[in-house]
């Protein structure tokens, strides 16, 4: 027998937009506090760590530029993931799809012999196709055989990693690299322009922004987007309405994998200018993009904001890595904590506390 209480917790069926934003901000804040407590316990001043992050990622032109540069692959991968997640396809494989894009771009840049004008467009096309192909394999396995998408996309990441390792140690190792495990440098026609002294390869950034808008239009305004949402929200209803889950799954993974592939092209053509070790091409962009997409509540436009946020964390992570001597895994610590607080807060969003003396 419940006592009448001063306040009541009610479930709200629809969560208003501003509540989502507010709760998300609170969740990120809570995660940063938790990480801070960890730093303190570990003997590092949390305040100093965050000062370094803020200064490093936002406080200088160089820092800002690095933040944007980190945000580019997160934007492309994140937009793709929002689409896959809309169809409830758990693409955890953006990392591998990104690497495949990088491999394809390197292949075209080094070995295609295409005329200079065609080289960069061909690299982007090849990168998209390679990423899409890497994404299609798990898509077909899930849609045809019902094989768990989380596991296959993850396994494909590891296969991609070792594929890159093999290429740079073996067949593609650059003769001019004096025994290092890199390919040769790309010809200059295969290198993306950057904004003056920064490492912001602006064509990829522009591409990312355009893609975010297009993805939004796709989801919200088109027939295909309607089908994607129905398949993701209720596969039974999709079957009932005659929507092919198979085609839809393939479509979202072509887009999702392809966009991750484009991110890979941007990294090798814009930053590294050659194919090199997989952990140097991608510092876990594909995994971080999962949080980027989730935080954006699967809205491609919101990814523009969330990718920047994680750009800050990544470039800030770089800074404290160097100045506090922490391993690069520190970024995973932030990522894990933010993701936890994010999903933990989701339940919170669905409830409203109202103060009243009413009894039911």
């Amino acid at each position, binding site marked *: 027998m419940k006592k009448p209480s001063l306040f009541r917790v009610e479930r709200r069926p629809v969560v208003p937009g501003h509540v989502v934003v507010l709760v998300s901000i609170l969740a990120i804040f809570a995660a940063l506090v938790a990480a801070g407590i960890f730093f303190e316990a570990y003997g590092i001043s949390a305040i100093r760590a965050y000062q370094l992050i803020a200064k490093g990622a936002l406080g200088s032109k160089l820092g800002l530029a690095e933040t944007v540069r980190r945000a580019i692959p997160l934007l492309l991968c994140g937009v793709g993931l929002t689409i896959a997640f809309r169809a409830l396809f758990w693409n955890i494989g953006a990392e591998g799809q990104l690497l495949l894009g990088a491999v394809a771009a390197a292949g075209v840049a080094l070995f295609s012999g295409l005329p200079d004008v065609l080289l960069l467009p061909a690299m982007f096309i090849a990168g998209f196709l390679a990423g899409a192909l890497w994404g299609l394999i798990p898509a077909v396995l899930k849609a045809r055989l019902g094989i768990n998408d989380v596991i296959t996309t993850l396994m494909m990441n590891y296969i991609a990693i070792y594929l890159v390792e093999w290429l740079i140690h073996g067949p593609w190792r650059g003769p001019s690299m004096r025994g290092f495990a890199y390919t040769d440098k790309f010809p200059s026609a295969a290198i993306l322009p950057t904004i003056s002294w920064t490492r912001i390869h602006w064509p990829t950034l522009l591409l990312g922004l355009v893609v975010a808008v297009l993805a939004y239009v796709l989801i919200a305004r088109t027939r295909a987007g309607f089908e994607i949402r129905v398949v993701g929200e209720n596969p039974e209803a999709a079957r009932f309405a005659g929507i092919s889950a198979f085609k839809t799954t393939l479509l979202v993974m072509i887009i999702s994998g392809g966009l991750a592939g484009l991110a890979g092209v941007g990294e090798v053509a814009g930053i590294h200018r050659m194919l090199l070790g997989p952990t140097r091409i991608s510092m876990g962009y594909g995994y971080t993009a999962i949080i980027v997409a989730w935080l954006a509540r699967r809205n491609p436009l919101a990814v523009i904001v969330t990718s920047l946020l994680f750009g800050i964390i990544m470039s800030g992570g770089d800074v404290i890595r160097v100045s506090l001597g922490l*391993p690069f895994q520190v970024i995973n610590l932030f990522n*894990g904590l933010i993701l936890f607080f994010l999903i933990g807060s989701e339940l919170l969003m669905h409830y409203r506390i109202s103060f009243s003396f009413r009894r039911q």
Partner: protein
Amino acid sequence: MGWETWFIVTLSRTLAYGTPLLLATLGEIYTERSGVLNLGVEGMMIMGAYAAFSTAYTTGSPWLGIVAGALVGGAFSLIHAFASITLKANQVISGLSLTMLGLGLSGVLGRGWEGRPLPASIPEITAPGLSKIPFLGPILFEGQNLIVYFSILLVVVMWYILYRTRIGIAVRAVGENPAAADSLGISVNKVRYLCTIVGGILAGMAGGYLSVAYRPAWTEGMTGGMGWIVIALTIFAFWNPAIGMLGAYLFAALYHLSFRLQPWVSPELLKAMPYAFAIIVLIAISRGTLHKKMGAPAALTLPYSRGEE
């Protein structure tokens, strides 16, 4: 090397490498049987590995290390349990964050521990007499450690509990139809918490085995995706501990064999093989009719609230 020696070495290594896979798979089987999918195995294993190594290094006792690994794995799984059972958060995302958190935390904490030698690791033992049994002797009773035997014993015990005791009935019922269990006075959340913790303890122990027994050392990210293979093995096992043992050893054998191909195939490609195997194995079992009858627990990944049907 004669064929017999070749087989003996292969099978003996299979047993050694299959043990961490087996331990973590047994745990994940229980977790999933209760309806909770924990994709954080990788994170729990790496935390277990770190905890075991640092404890063994500090105390000098590898056994304390294993215990610490198990405890830390269990504690770590509580995060997932809380998020997915109490907060009813998305289990896929929660598990992923557990893995990220584990990799991140162990990476930062383990910074100073890399490259240090362990004063003592779990000893390999050779059973006098038994090891003289032709063929089987050298495989089973020579150069293995106690954890290997413990994991085999655990298969029997966990199989028995799952299928032949009241506890097992409750676990299976909770994973299959939580409303049914609830209406008979079984606390769905309690069972799920316990099973998730069991999964964490065993994953932590598996990680500890890696860092203080299998190859006594600590390296960042040393589990290298083994946790994901455990998830695949759980499906392969049809959520049955006995088949899980078969799967873990089969996998370990394939893994070991891939190294035997070193002279012919480049090491980078060989490292990719376990992951390719996992996909191939999943494809292979997805085809049979068996898969339909012995599918996943019906309530897997579904949070339970009383009164919602």
